[in-house]
C-alpha cells in the first residue's frame, strides 16, 4: 500500500491546517511568555525589557489572590454538584417512569442556550424586587435578597447558573453510559437479592467511572474558559467577589489596556492548566493500574 506522503500532499494535508492551529494556539502561548518580560509601550516610548517586574506585580496583586480563591471555590463547588445532579438526571430519564420525555427536555434545554442568554434569564430571575426569586421570597413573607449585589451571595449565585447550564450536557454522557450497562449484570445482581440501591452502587457506578473522568476533565476546562456570565451579570463584583481568572485577564487587557500584565496573567493561566493536566494524567495512570 502506498503510504509515503509526498511533499505536495503534506503541504495541503498538514502544513496549511496545522499552521493555522499553531498560529492561534502555540504561537500566542509562547508570545505571552515573551511579552510578560516586557512592559507596555505607549505613544511616547516603545516597550522595553522589564525582567520579572510583571511577575513581581503578580505576586503583590491582592485582587489576583482573591480571584484565585474564587476560581478554586468555583471549580470545587460546581464540578461535583454538576456531576452529582447529572447522574441523578440520567437515572431519572433512563428509568421507564412516565414523563421522561418532558424531563429530558427540561434538563437538556439550558445546555442548548448560549451562556449569554442563560445569563440574561438568571439576571432577570435574581433581579431584586422584580425577579421570580424575590417574588417567591415575598410569597413566604421574606424580604427580597439582592443575590448578585452582595459579596456573600454573588459567587454562589454564579455557580448555580453554571451548574444549571452544564448539568444537562453531562446528563447526556451518563445516559449513553447507562444505556451501555449490560442488563444481564443487573439481573444477576437482582437474582442474588441485591436491592436497587446496591445494584446501582456496586454494579452501575464502577461502570460509570470512565464517563465521570471524561466529564470531570471537561468540566474543569470549562470552569476556566467560560466567563460570559461573569461579564454580563456581575462584572466580577461586588468588590471582586465573583471575578474569575479569565474574566480578570479580559478586564486587565481590554478595559484597562494593560497588555503586558494581561500576557503575564495568560502565562499564569496556561501554567495552571498545564499543571492540572499533569496531575490528571498522573492520577489516571495510577488508577489504571488497579483496573
Amino acid at each position, binding site marked *: 500500500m502506498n503510504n509515503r506522503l509526498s511533499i505536495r500532499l503534506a503541504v495541503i494535508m498538514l502544513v496549511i491546517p496545522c499552521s493555522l492551529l499553531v498560529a492561534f494556539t502555540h504561537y500566542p502561548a509562547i508570545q505571552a511568555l515573551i511579552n510578560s518580560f516586557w512592559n507596555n509601550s505607549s505613544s511616547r516610548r516603545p516597550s522595553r525589557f522589564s525582567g520579572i517586574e510583571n511577575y513581581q506585580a503578580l505576586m503583590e496583586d491582592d485582587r489576583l489572590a482573591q480571584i484565585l480563591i474564587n476560581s478554586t471555590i468555583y471549580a470545587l463547588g460546581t464540578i461535583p454538584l454538576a456531576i452529582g445532579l447529572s447522574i441523578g438526571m440520567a437515572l431519572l430519564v433512563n428509568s421507564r417512569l412516565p414523563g421522561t420525555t418532558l424531563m429530558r427536555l427540561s434538563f437538556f434545554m439550558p445546555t442548548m442556550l448560549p451562556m449569554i442568554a442563560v445569563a*440574561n434569564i438568571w439576571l432577570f430571575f435574581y433581579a431584586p424586587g422584580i425577579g421570580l426569586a424575590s417574588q417567591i421570597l415575598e410569597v413566604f413573607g421574606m424580604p427580597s435578597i439582592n443575590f448578585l449585589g452582595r459579596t456573600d451571595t454573588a459567587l454562589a449565585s454564579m455557580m448555580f447558573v453554571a451548574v444549571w447550564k452544564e448539568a444537562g450536557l453531562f446528563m447526556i454522557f451518563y445516559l449513553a453510559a447507562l444505556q451501555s450497562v449490560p442488563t444481564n449484570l443487573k439481573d444477576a445482581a437482582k437474582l442474588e437479592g441485591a436491592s436497587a440501591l446496591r445494584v446501582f452502587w456496586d454494579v452501575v457506578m464502577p461502570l460509570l467511572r470512565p464517563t465521570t473522568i471524561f466529564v470531570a476533565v471537561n468540566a474543569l476546562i470549562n470552569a476556566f474558559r467560560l466567563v460570559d456570565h461573569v461579564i454580563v451579570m456581575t462584572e466580577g463584583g461586588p468588590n471582586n467577589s465573583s471575578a474569575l481568572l479569565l474574566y480578570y485577564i479580559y478586564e486587565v487587557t481590554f478595559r484597562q489596556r494593560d497588555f503586558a500584565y494581561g500576557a503575564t496573567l*495568560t502565562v499564569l493561566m496556561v501554567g495552571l492548566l498545564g499543571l492540572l493536566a499533569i496531575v490528571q494524567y498522573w492520577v489516571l495512570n495510577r488508577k489504571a493500574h488497579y483496573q
Partner: protein
Amino acid sequence: MNRGLNRILLSTMGVVFAALWALPFIYSVWTAFHDEKYSANFQLGAPWTFENFIEAWQSAPFSLYFANTMILITIVLVANLILCTLVAYAFVRYKFRWAGFLFALIMVQLLISPEILIVENYLTLSRVGLTDTIIGIALPYLTSAFGIFLLRQTFLTVPKSLDEAAQIEGAGAWRVLWNVYVPLAWPVYLAYSLVSISFHWNNFLWPLIVTNSPEVRPLTVGLSVFATVDSGVEWSLVNAATLMTTAPLIIAFIIFQRQFVANFMRAGIK
C-alpha cells in the same frame, strides 16, 4: 402494590424537579409574551401579546446580527470539515516522521483553547488588520483539535481492504478519501457539525473583543449590547430579545431532539 406506589412517587418527584429546573426559562418565556407591567408580578390571567418581539426587533439591527452569525458559523463549519478531514486523513493513511509528536502538539488545543489566549490572539489579529471582521472572529477556530481527533478515530475504523481495493482500481489519494473514507464517516460529520454550530452560535467573549461595529457583530454580542445599552432595562423586551436570538437553536433542538441527543452521545463517547 408497594412497587407501583413507589413508581408514582418517584415519577412525581422527577416531574416536579424537572419543572423547577425549567422554571427560570419558562418564566422568561412567559414574560416575553406579556406586557412590561406583569414582569414584576406574575398573574396567571394576564393577556398575551407579541408586542415585545416586534419592539425588540425594531430597536436593534437583529436581522443583521442573524446574518453575521450565519456567515460566521458557515465559514467555521466549512473550514472545520475540510481542514480536519485533511489532517485526520494524513494521520490515518500515511506514515511520516514525527507523526506522534505532531499529533500530541495538535491535541494541546483541547486543553489550551483559543478562548484562553485572547490577549495575544487579539494582538495577532490587529497586526494583520483583521479586527472587527467576521473572518477575524473565525480565524482561531478554523482548525479544531476536537474535530481532528474525532475524525481520526473514525477513519481508523475504515477497513484497509476497502482502501486497497479502491487503489487497485486506480483511485488516487483524493478519490479514496472522497469515495471510501468520507461516506463511511457520515454520522460523525453530522455529530461534529451539530457541536460546531451550537458552539459558534453561542460563543461570546472572543467576538465581543474582536468586534466594534454593528456590521460584523454576531447575535450573542448584539444581544448583550441590546440588553445593557439603556440602563432603564425593560425586562419584557430583554426576555423577548433573548428568546428571539436563541429560538432557531431551540426549535431545531425540539424537532431533532432524538438525533441531537444520540449525536451528542456519539461525539462524547469517542
